[in-house]
């Protein structure tokens, strides 16, 4: 157990030592609230696993698929979780290249969220394919029939995009962790010291190590930046390359990327509020950081609202009867409640963030972020399920789609899976970057007070 950090008195500056100790302190015993959250996450995961086992045994008939809705809640969850992942890379890579100092306190949490969200997202296509045990058919490998995947299909692009994204965001997270694990290694004791001695890979902060590390990190950020923009574009092409009215739009790539970052930033806020409380990080993650996240949320929220307007305008202005019918069905058909939840949560609610009072209120942001998450889930539901259900080319075959317990159970399980990994990570590895928080502090120089 590391020593308890004492907050520096008013007027003195935050020292390097204070940063190391207050972050290393999160690696100790987090208290009852943490275990209650972890317990609920594991319970949710158990529900999901139960539903998944039944689905494996009895087949996809348990989920609510009905013609023509064969992409439903699982694909909605897939897109939702991939979207959640995006803001992590935005904060860790894009804002790194823009040299914004405020990202240092929040980027580790966001990056961990990215990795776990992609891990969650990756499960859904596998659940959705039906015969889950043949998942390896997606991989291009030489087989006895001499067949290869169809590289003209956006679904195979998606597999490559998600696979690359998961790999790159994981190595990016681990790379950023190495100096911090080393810093934690040097202040903790017991089994953690041994764990960190191995996982810090011999990091000592020598000039040679920093020279290669900073260069490499820069290139990783430079590679992750176009990657994050490409991944959700490719996800959007899963839909936009098809001719279903409501899907077939050139707008989809930027629309999905903005939506992904919007929902991801909201999820970062949702995660940071309890983390900050549970691990007493109030001095490091301040209202200023939340306000910046809220501004990012407002910006992307406005882009998303603009995309909604353009989407509807194009459907009307394009004059194609099928496109018009699809959008009429979306707004006033049997799924009107889903569309209007989406419009209110994503289009109207972010306007509250224009007010500084709300941007600087942690509770207010927490509530708004949860509504944004709900709204963004419904956005994907509306795009995927409602477009298919109301497909005007198959009016004769339209059925009412109702998700079943198998859909909801596995979705709940995905939240449990995500939060379980996230909570375990936060407790066992530095949840705030130690070295990067120090980088934005003034360096100790002679003649200035250096003691806290």
């Amino acid at each position: 157990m590391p020593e308890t950090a004492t907050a520096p008195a008013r007027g003195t500056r935050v020292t390097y030592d204070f940063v190391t100790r207050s972050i290393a302190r999160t690696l100790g015993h987090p208290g009852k609230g943490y275990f209650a959250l972890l317990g609920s996450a594991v319970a949710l995961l158990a529900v999901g696993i139960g539903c998944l086992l039944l689905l494996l045994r009895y087949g996809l008939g348990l989920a609510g698929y009905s013609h023509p809705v064969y992409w439903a809640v699982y694909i909605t969850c897939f897109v939702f979780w991939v979207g959640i992942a995006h803001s992590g890379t935005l904060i860790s890579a894009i804002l790194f290249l823009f040299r914004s100092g405020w990202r240092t306190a929040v980027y580790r949490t966001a990056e961990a969220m990215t990795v776990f969200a992609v891990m969650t997202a990756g499960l859904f296509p596998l659940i959705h394919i039906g015969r889950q045990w043949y998942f390896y058919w997606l991989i291009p490998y030489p087989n006895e029939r001499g067949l290869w995947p169809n590289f003209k299909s956006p679904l195979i692009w998606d597999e490559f995009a998600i696979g690359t994204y998961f790999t790159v965001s994981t190595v990016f997270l681990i790379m950023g962790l190495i100096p911090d694990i080393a810093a934690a290694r040097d202040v903790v004791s017991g089994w953690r010291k041994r764990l960190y001695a191995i996982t810090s890979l011999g990091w000592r902060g020598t000039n040679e190590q920093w020279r290669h590390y900073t260069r490499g990190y820069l290139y990783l950020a430079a590679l992750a930046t176009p990657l994050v923009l490409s991944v959700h574009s490719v996800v959007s092409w899963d839909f936009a390359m098809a001719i279903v009215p409501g899907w077939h739009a050139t707008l989809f790539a930027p629309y999905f990327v903005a939506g992904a970052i919007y929902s991801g930033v909201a999820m970062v806020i949702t995660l940071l509020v309890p983390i900050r409380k549970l691990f007493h990080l109030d001095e490091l993650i301040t209202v200023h950081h939340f306000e910046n996240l809220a501004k990012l949320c407002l910006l992307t929220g406005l882009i998303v609202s603009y995309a909604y307007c353009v989407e509807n305008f194009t459907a009307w202005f394009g004059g194609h009867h099928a496109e018009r019918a699809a959008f009429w069905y979306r707004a006033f058909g049997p799924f009107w409640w889903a569309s209007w939840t989406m419009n209110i949560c994503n289009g109207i609610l972010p306007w509250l963030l224009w007010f500084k009072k709300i941007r600087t209120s942690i509770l207010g942001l927490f509530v708004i972020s949860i509504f944004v998450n709900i709204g963004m889930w419904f956005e994907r539901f509306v795009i995927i399920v409602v477009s298919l259900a109301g497909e005007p080319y198959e009016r004769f075959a339209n059925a009412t789609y109702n998700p079943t317990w198998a859909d909801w159970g596995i979705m709940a399980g995905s939240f449990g899976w995500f939060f379980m990994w996230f909570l375990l990570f936060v407790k066992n590895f530095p949840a705030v970057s130690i070295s990067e928080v120090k980088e934005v502090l003034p360096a100790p120089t002679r003649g200035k007070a250096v003691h806290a």
Partner: protein
Amino acid sequence: MKLVNPLTAIFHPPPTPGVLGVFGHLDATVEAIGKLRHGGHTDFTVYSPIPRHEIEDALDQPVSPVRMFTLIGGIAGCAIGAWLTLYMSYDWPIVLGGKPVGSIPPYVVIMFEMTILFGALATILGILFNALFAARRLGTVAYDARFTNDKFGIFVPCEAARAGQVEALLRGTGAEEVRRA
């Protein structure tokens, strides 16, 4: 006769003799680096809790070769992406959507993703290779646990005869603590 385990030489090499100075201030560290370089020392090790441009500038090291790893990895990835898609299309030619069997526009997506994937993995390999395996005197140089927290450090490898002179230099520039290793 006592047999020597040959792996010991690789995994537990003997410590490098020299002098370790612990600094509390960045400017003192930078000054010491300047004086050491002026005094003809070239292969000393500087420890710092964070990367600082002041230290980099004082050391005036060449740009890290990691960038070559990134470049070669990225180009290789792009080529592998192109080969994968085109070879597999022509290996079992099926006309889809009236498009050429090997059509470049959809394959650009795969080529792009593979560029990023291989570029990133090669960058990681580049960092690991340069910072761990190719690092000079890895694990044999004296270290202090405070260097990842709030202290800067300089280790100067030197034989015992010159140690006193180096010690005086480090102390003179404001080292809080100096010890021989």
